[in-house]
């Protein structure tokens, strides 16, 4: 199935295939540009159109109603291309005329005649007017120094730039640079063309009037406006697409999956792939990232592509659009699947509680202090998120967290503590296993308890929201000496009457469920 266009030539109506129409109309435009727009030129064009009509009607048979591309090419070979006509008339094409003819319709194609690989360079050369050899050298240099990136660019160009198949497309391919002054010229030219066509029409039938003329001019102006506006939109699509691609590519991927701290706006950051690995494990993290890349970059690439299409009048390629859409949807499906799979690893909560009684004399004092020594050297590479620290020492990564201490009042005279390890997992057992792997040390010596400042995750850990809750249950009135360092891990959300300002080393006791400072004389 092919789309046809209906045209009339010298009073006869023809149905003509769309591709054939494109070639024919550019051929006629070419002739018009060559013969000029004076009286004589019109007459020549009319004669030639009449001849084309005659040749076409010879092609039409009851079994063949449509003029094909082949027919058009045959007719053109009988009448001759502009170059042949020039040659036979013993004239040289003036360079000015060449510009005029080629400025209006210029598209980026791959040049198959001068190609080495896909004809991308030769096409670009024809399009930009830059020497072909220079473009090839630039491409070669980029190939060598861009570590494969240029190969990708080349392949993408190969994919999105259509090849010049017909003679008309080859003509469209050669032209001048698109810049504002050329766009302006093109618009002026088209405006002139419409004006002269309109004048012709007015001469033919007498209902043309000034109002109509003005209307036409307005429509033409509007067209011109949208043309320039469209190019601007195209350019901004490209700029936005490229900008976002670079930002996201850096943010998501380029920063590698290694431990590497960088600073953005004063905040320490870790590369997304690395953080993802900590949550999901290496394989899943990569699958997730690939899916994410497809979901993020396919729309950006189509944005850039549509910008390029607008700017360079590329034909839109349906197959490419559909395959991009399919790719995007599968990426999205994969992303959802992986996200669900990752989230199931966090679905259950597991905890292991260890309860120990402390034998004590009611009159003795309980000493609470903290082993405050940092388990890591501040000079090492480290990053802290809230109370969670990641430290790297000679390629070994360690994670430290801060436990939380709760001091509560005992209902009787018993004194005990509970160490609760909490973690998440795909099920109860998994979660409990994860919880049991948290390492936390403290020491009890008579009535002195020394808490470690940090708990540690096992080697080759995954983040499962591990935490340690310490509950110290003290009978009412029990005297305690609390070192001020202990307040660093004390759960201040609990209803302690003491504000952080008066967290000083000193004596405290539980009274009416509250931790109160004791003034000792």
């Amino acid at each position: 199935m092919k789309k046809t266009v209906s045209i009339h030539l010298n009073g006869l109506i023809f149905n003509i295939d769309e591709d054939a129409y494109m070639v024919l109309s550019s051929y006629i435009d070419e002739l018009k540009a060559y013969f000029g727009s004076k009286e004589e030129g019109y007459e020549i064009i009319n004669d030639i159109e009449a001849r084309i009509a005659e040749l076409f009607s010879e092609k039409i048979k009851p079994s063949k109603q449509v003029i094909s591309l082949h027919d058009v090419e045959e007719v053109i070979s009988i009448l001759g291309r502009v170059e042949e006509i020039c040659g036979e008339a013993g004239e040289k094409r003036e360079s000015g005329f060449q510009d005029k003819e080629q400025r209006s319709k210029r598209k980026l194609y791959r040049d198959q005649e001068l190609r080495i690989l896909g004809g991308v360079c030769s096409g670009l050369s024809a399009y930009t007017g830059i020497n072909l050899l220079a473009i090839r050298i630039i491409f070669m240099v980029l190939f060598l120094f861009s570590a494969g990136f240029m190969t990708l660019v080349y392949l993408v160009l190969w994919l999105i730039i259509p090849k010049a198949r017909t003679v008309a497309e080859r003509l469209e391919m050669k032209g001048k640079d698109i810049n504002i002054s050329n766009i302006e010229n093109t618009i002026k030219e088209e405006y002139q063309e419409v004006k002269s066509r309109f004048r012709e029409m007015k001469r033919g039938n007498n209902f043309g009037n000034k109002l109509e003329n003005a209307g036409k001019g307005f429509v033409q102006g509007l067209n011109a406006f949208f043309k320039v506006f469209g190019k601007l939109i195209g350019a901004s699509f490209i700029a936005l697409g490229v900008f976002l691609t670079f930002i996201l590519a850096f943010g998501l991927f380029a920063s590698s999956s290694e431990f590497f701290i960088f600073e953005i706006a004063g905040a320490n950051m870790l590369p997304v792939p690395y953080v993802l690995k900590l949550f999901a494990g290496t394989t899943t993290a990569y699958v997730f990232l690939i899916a994410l890349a497809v979901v993020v970059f396919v729309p950006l690439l189509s944005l850039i592509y549509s910008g390029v299409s607008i700017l360079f009048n590329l034909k839109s390629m349906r197959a490419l659009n559909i395959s991009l859409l399919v790719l995007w949807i599968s990426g999205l499906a994969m992303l959802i699947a992986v996200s669900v799979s990752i989230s199931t690893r966090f679905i259950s909560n597991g905890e292991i509680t260890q309860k120990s009684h402390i034998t004590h004399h009611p009159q003795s004092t309980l000493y609470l202090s903290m082993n405050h020594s940092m388990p890591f050297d501040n000079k090492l590479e480290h990053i802290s998120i809230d109370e969670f620290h990641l430290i790297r020492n000679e390629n070994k990564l360690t994670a430290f967290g801060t436990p939380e201490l709760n001091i509560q009042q005992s209902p009787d005279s018993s004194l005990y503590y509970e160490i609760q390890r909490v973690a998440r997992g795909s099920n109860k057992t998994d979660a409990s296993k994860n919880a049991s792997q948290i390492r936390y040390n403290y020491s009890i010596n008579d009535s002195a308890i020394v808490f470690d400042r940090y708990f540690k995750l096992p080697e080759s850990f995954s983040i499962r929201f591990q935490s340690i809750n310490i509950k110290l249950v003290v009978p009412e009135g029990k005297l305690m000496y609390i070192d001020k360092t202990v307040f660093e891990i004390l759960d201040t959300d609990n209803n302690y009457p003491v504000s952080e300002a008066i967290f000083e080393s000193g004596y405290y006791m539980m009274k009416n469920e509250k931790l109160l400072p004791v003034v000792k004389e």
Partner: protein
Amino acid sequence: MNMDTERTNSQMRKGILEYCILLIIEKNEVYVPDIIEKLKASNLIVVEGTLYPLVMRLKNSGYLSYQWKESTSGPPRKYYSITEAGKNLLADLDTMWTELSNTIESLKNNQTS
């Protein structure tokens, strides 16, 4: 053909083409596509497009005139015929051509002998 012969060739053609067209049209009324048949043999021109501007120039200078004639296939066609002015021009060109070819011939003969 090298560049020089090509350039000379196209300049020679340019002068001769109009003469050829007048010669053909002098015999009888012609339709532009018919002219090409006669010229193709000499390899002088091969595409019809070349003829339209030439015929148009001759017509606009008053050497040719045309009239519409019904055709068996499709719409009426423009048939060209030579005018009095055209005949005069042709006579001048004939003389010029004879002189030219005589000159060329004698030059060639002198050279060989």
